[in-house]
Every structure is written in C-alpha cells, then in structure tokens.
C-alpha cells in the first residue's frame, strides 16, 4: 500500500513510525528517494555512485519488520555517505583519480555501527578531492550544484552529502569536517550539519586528511535527526586511539539566562566591520537570531577572542602539513592509480602527478614547505603554539559563556568558478568554522533564513559552538531555535 509521502516533511522518527506500523515499506520509502535521485541528479550531481544493492538492503529490513522483529530507530532509513568512508566491497575514491577504482576492503567504524542499525546506504556522495576544498569544485569528477541555485556551489568539501539531503535524495547523510567541511555546505544548502568534539567519533575507515582536525558528522533536515545519527556513530573505538569516552556530561540546560557569547572578531554587534566581509543578509539573519534568543531569555554577551585573527593562518599551515604526511601513502605501489616512470622515483613522480588534482598538489607542496628544514620552526612550530593559544582563549571564554554564536559563513553560496582563480579567496569561506577544528570543540550549523541574490533565495546558516563534549547543549538550543524561531 503506497501512500504519497511528503518527503520534505519527513524525519527519522516519522519514517520509523510509518515503517513500524506498516504504512509504508522500506522498499517503498527508498523508491521515493530513488525517484527524486533520478529527477534531480542530472542537475545536482550530488552522488558519485548510487549503490545497486540499496533495494536488497531495504528488503532485508522489510523481512525483519514482517517477521515482527524489533528494529532500531534508524532501520530502513536511506542514508548517503561521503566518498571518503570505507564500505566493504564498494568503490571509495575520495573524489580523486588516485582512487577512482579503489574498492574498500573493510568497513569504517561508523559504517559498522550504522550497519548494525540496519540503515540503507543509498550511495556515495561527491566531495572535493581528499576533502580539500570549500565548494566541491575540486572533485575529480565534476562539481555538485546547489539545490537552490544551479549556478552556485553546494559548498565543500562535503558538498554532495549536503546537497543530497537538501535535494530530498536521502533522509540524512554523513560528511567529514576538517575546517568546516560539514558546517559550511550545510549552511550553503539550508540543512543541519554538525561536527562532533574531536575524539567523539572514530576515524577508523575515514580516509585521513588532517588527523588532528578530521571528524565525521551527520547532515539532516532537523536537529533531532542529526542527534539520532550522532548517537549512533559516536563512541570510543580501540582501533582509533584518538577516540575518547567522555565522562557523562550532565550539565544543566535552561534557555533562561543561557549565556551566549558573540565574538566581536566574527560578528561585531554594532555592525562596525569585524574580520570578514559579512554579507548584509547574513548579517541581518544573524542579528534576528540573536534578538530572538535575547527575547527568549538568553543573555547575549559580546566576547573577544583576539587570537582568532590568527586561526586561518595557523590552520593553513597545520592542515597542509598533516595532509602532506597523510597523502604520502598514495604512491601506486599497493593500490590506486599508477603511472610508471623510468625508475622508482619516476613511478612516484608520475603516479602522484597524474593521480592528484591541483588543490591536492598545492596543499601537499605547501605542507612539505612548512615542514622542511629551515622553515619548520617559523611555520609549523609557531602554528602549533598559536593553536594552543586559541584553545586556551576558548577555555577562558567558556568560563563566561555557555555557547558561542556566529554566522556559519560570511556569505551565502558563491557562484561556481568565482573563487577558483585565487585559492586564498576560497580559504576565506572557512573563517568562522576553522576554530572548532583547531580547538576540537563541537559545533553545529542551523538553517537560518535566506539571502537574496540575483533574484534567487539562498540559505544562510547560524553556527553554535559548545565546550568540549557538550554536544547536548548544541542539540537542546538547536531544537529550541528550530521549533520557535
């Protein structure tokens, strides 16, 4: 019995209810999304591959439900996975020619966990090559377009995962965030996206970009859905020694008198300027959100985090350094793209020249530079110290406030091609998101109004940051904002 479902209003809980009481089967649910995929993919290009066994997965769940077995909240839910997380037997390319035909030989930790919950993996989504970029234009396989405006980017590097949810091609998705790669595309595409505290989600099976900065996180249309998925994927993993099991965070949460800090360096409350050129509509939307929260009983405090002015520079030293190390494994010897030369050195040179795109090469060489003799102290060591300074500053600030608020990005989605000529211009898109990665703090982007550009309505995002391991605060305030604003 198929009933017409309004996919745009669907949530995990609603889908679960409908599946449990037989209103709809998993296969039927999947078919609605597959229909949307067929309709929208030629334009969006959010996916690199639609898995041909998705219906098989859905059937297995339908069997369980038919046999009266109790299934998890996430059972049968169609989920898309960013193309840098390994699923056994599936191709996984990290958006790169280097791994175009690579087949994963084990499941990432998060995939293992989600398989136990009987989720249906719909496909792997497009991304900037090796997660390096803020627009998905650096994918070796074409860019992903913004569902709100075909001429604009979906953001990056998890652009495909964001666009797939916004385009109703799946109910939720996973992305990874190293400098904002979940939150920024979430803001550009008008969905919820969240980066957990560093260490909350295992990176086993996530192709490493910058090991001290990477985290996996969910995209969905609602905060509750993001929370449900986060709870399913989090947890200490003995095979990822950077994961932690935090002592239970039971901090009280009340909207009334909640202290919300707005960093003047990011968002001067008197519109006097600040670090980044903030789009007028983004400014207005953020100001409206702040006013709403003030009226709801929150205490809005203007705070100052002076070391923020160095965060972008520190990030663009530390991240390429780690990238240059992590990407050295791609040498055509054990797997992946290979192009031979006249000797072993030639094999490496040709393979890596042919396998990597321009942005990846740029960052590898930059990383090599800042780590090389003579420059190591001036760049890398200094950046590590600045990173410590930034972390200490945030520690101090969280004594005075409970949540930090800012726009997620200074502008809405930019036009494709607009920022490709000058890499630094592209890097500026991450200015508000980077501190959460440098410090390891959890952060979420919530859809917050729209911007008018060339007669099109483009989403804008509101970012909330909480202290380490206080994801609960982000979810509670996020839900309150979502339901009442």
């Amino acid at each position: 019995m198929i009933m017409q479902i309004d996919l745009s209003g669907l949530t995990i809980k609603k889908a679960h209810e409908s599946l449990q009481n037989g209103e709809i089967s998993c296969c039927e649910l999947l078919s609605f999304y597959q229909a949307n995929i067929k309709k929208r993919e030629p334009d969006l290009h959010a996916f690199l591959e639609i898995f041909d066994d998705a219906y098989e997965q859905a059937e297995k769940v339908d069997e369980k439900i038919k046999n009266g077995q109790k299934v998890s909240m996430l059972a049968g839910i169609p989920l898309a996975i960013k193309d840098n997380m390994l699923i056994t037997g599936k191709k996984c390319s990290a958006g790169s020619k280097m791994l175009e035909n690579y087949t994963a030989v084990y499941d990432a930790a998060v995939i293992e966990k989600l398989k136990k919950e009987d989720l249906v993996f719909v496909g792997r989504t497009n991304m900037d090559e090796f997660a390096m970029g803020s627009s998905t234009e650096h994918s070796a396989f074409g860019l992903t377009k913004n569902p709100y405006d075909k001429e604009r980017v979906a953001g990056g590097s998890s652009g495909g995962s964001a666009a797939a949810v916004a385009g109703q091609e799946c109910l939720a998705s996973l992305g990874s965030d190293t400098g904002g790669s979940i939150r920024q595309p979430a803001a550009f595409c008008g969905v919820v996206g969240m980066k957990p505290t560093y260490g909350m989600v295992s990176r086993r099976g996530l192709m490493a970009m910058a090991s001290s900065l990477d985290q996996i996180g969910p995209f969905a249309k609602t905060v509750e859905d993001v929370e449900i998925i986060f709870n399913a994927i989090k947890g200490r993993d003995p095979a990822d020694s950077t994961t932690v099991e935090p002592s239970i965070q039971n901090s009280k949460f009340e909207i009334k008198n909640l202290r919300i800090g707005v960093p003047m360096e990011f968002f001067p409350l008197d519109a006097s300027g600040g670090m980044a050129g903030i789009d007028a509509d983004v400014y207005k939307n953020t100001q409206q959100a702040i006013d709403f929260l003030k009226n709801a009983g929150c205490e809005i405090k203007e705070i100052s985090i002076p070391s923020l002015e160095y965060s972008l520079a520190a990030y663009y030293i530390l991240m390429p350094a780690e990238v240059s190390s992590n990407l050295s494994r791609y040498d055509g010897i054990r797997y992946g793209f290979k192009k031979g030369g006249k000797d072993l050195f030639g094999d490496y040179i040709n393979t890596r020249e042919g396998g990597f795109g321009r942005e990846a090469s740029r960052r590898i060489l930059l990383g090599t530079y800042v780590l090389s003799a003579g420059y190591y102290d001036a760049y890398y060591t200094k950046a590590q110290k600045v990173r410590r300074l930034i972390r200490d500053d945030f520690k101090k600030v969280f004594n005075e406030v409970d949540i930090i608020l800012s726009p997620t990005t200074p502008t809405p989605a930019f036009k494709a091609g607009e920022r490709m000529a000058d890499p630094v211009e592209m890097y500026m898109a991450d200015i508000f998101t980077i501190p959460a990665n440098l410090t390891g703090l959890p952060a979420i982007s919530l859809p917050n109004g729209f911007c008018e550009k060339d007669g099109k309505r483009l989403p804008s995002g509101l970012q909330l940051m909480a202290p380490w391991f206080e994801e609960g605060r982000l979810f509670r305030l996020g839900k309150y904002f979502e339901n009442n604003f």
Partner: protein
Amino acid sequence: MITKKEIKKLSELARVGLADSEAEKLQKDLVNILDFISKLKEAQVSEIEEEMPELRNVLRDDESPHESAENTAILMKQVPDQEKGYVKVKKIR
C-alpha cells in the same frame, strides 16, 4: 618569496611531478598563500607551549594476532604490479 628552484625541490621531496606550466602556476599560488599565512609572524607566542594532544601512546597489548595471511588475498587484488604473490617495485638505487 618562493623561487622556481624551491618549487622544484618541493616537487621532488613530495614526489609530485609538475609540468612547467603547473610549476609556474603553483609558484604564484604559493607566494600568495605564504603571504596570507605570514600573518602568523605577528602572533606573540614565545611564552606558549606547543599544542600537544591530551592522549598519548594509547596502545593495545601485544596479543591476539589475527590468523596469518587472513587479508592477503583481498589486499593483493588491488596491487597494480605483482609477481608470484609479491608486490613488485622497481629497483631502489
């Protein structure tokens, strides 16, 4: 200011080949980026210790190895150049 010679050196160190036109473009890009990150020079951090992760040396006990050669077949499937069950590489000079 990063020179063409330095770019060539970096390309060799990182084992990433660069056509001349690419090397030229990259040089311009890196000059631009290095200028951007040179902002860090102003930061006053002489008294600060480097950021170190809180977790160090989280190791498991050296026990319970998996069965020998359990994964070999599936891993060898992806090796571009192999011979008689060995991964094949050119001679290291």
